[in-house]
């Protein structure tokens, strides 16, 4: 069901292409309302993707999302609404997050307690277990090299086909498949190690 919902979201941009093209044209002409409408259409996806690439840190993800949309604003004049806009936006998101990670010289491994600070919901035992699992996944993602993490986030969490991930990351499909495969195995082994430590 979740996958179906995601598929519908990703198809949404294609289905509304003429409407989106109109928004882009108006935004290019300086219409702030049109630019805001574009923001509304993509802000959730950009923010969540950034959060997944930045070890679940919401504050960093907010900064990244702002940078992405400001870059979009700066590049409006050269934007072609008919050519893979979503892919372009994801590529910018990946690049901005990569730059942020490098600039802040973060170590790839974050303590479990710090990972996924936004996903915490608290409350019932189920919710707490779910929170714990999310922390574990964020910690596992944080152990991956940049490219592998980006490939896993786009393929397994965003649910994109490998060809699309390759286009966004500017790599070949073979390379991306290898990154995805390595990433999945590493995540599995990380979870395995963590679970063995638990009493």
């Amino acid at each position: 069901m979740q996958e179906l919902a995601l598929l519908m979201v990703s198809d949404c941009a294609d289905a509304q292409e003429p409407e989106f093209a109109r928004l882009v044209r108006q935004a290019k002409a300086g219409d702030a309302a049109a630019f805001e409408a574009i923001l509304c259409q993509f802000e959730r996806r950009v923010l969540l993707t950034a959060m997944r690439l930045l070890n679940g840190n919401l504050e960093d993800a907010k900064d990244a999302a702002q940078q992405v949309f400001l870059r979009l604003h700066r590049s409006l004049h050269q934007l072609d609404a008919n050519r893979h806009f979503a892919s372009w936006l994801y590529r910018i998101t990946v690049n901005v997050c990569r730059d942020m990670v490098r600039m802040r010289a973060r170590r790839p491994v974050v303590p479990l307690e710090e990972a996924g600070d936004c996903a915490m919901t608290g409350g019932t035992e189920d919710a707490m277990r779910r929170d714990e699992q999310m922390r574990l996944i964020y910690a596992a993602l944080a152990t991956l090299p940049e490219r592998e993490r980006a490939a896993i986030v786009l393929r397994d969490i965003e649910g994109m086909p490998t060809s699309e991930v390759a286009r966004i990351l500017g790599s070949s499909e073979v390379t991306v498949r290898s990154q995805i495969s390595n990433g999945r195995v590493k995540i599995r082994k990380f979870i395995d190690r963590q679970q063995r430590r638990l009493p």
Partner: protein
Amino acid sequence: MSCHKFEPMIALYIEDDLAQAEAQAVESHLAACDACRKFALEMRESQAALKALRTEFVDDAVLLQVRMEVLSVAAHRPRIVAWPRYAIAAGLVIALLAGWLVRQQADKALVALQPLHAILPVPPARWAIQAHQPKALAARVRRRSKRQAPRFKSEPLVVKMITDDPQVVIYWLVDQNGG
């Protein structure tokens, strides 16, 4: 193939990311290997946990905060329009073309001077260029003079000798082809 080598393939197999032939090879191996079957099961669990991140939500207030910040910065930023870039590019092209045309004209003017070679023993273009023009241009003219040299040689050299008597002028025609 060892079980260790099957791990990356199993990681792709569980999400249908393998080509048919590779998937069949993995299936055959899984049917015969308990350890890899267990690994595939665990991989499916970790993939399910990974996909649980899809259910994450972001509060609307957070989205609004990001949006307001972006709109506020964007409103104070001068809008970049495309035409000045095109205008600059067009200006550069015109300037280059103009430069090229001027150079062509200068070359033609130098070529026009070349009949003087027929009268003067040293081609004037050669020494004039060497004295006043940049080295590259002088070299180019020298090459051109060399290329066209046979044409000047075939023409007779005319030497005009003036005597004390204004009524007597001697013209000396020298055949440069050795005749």
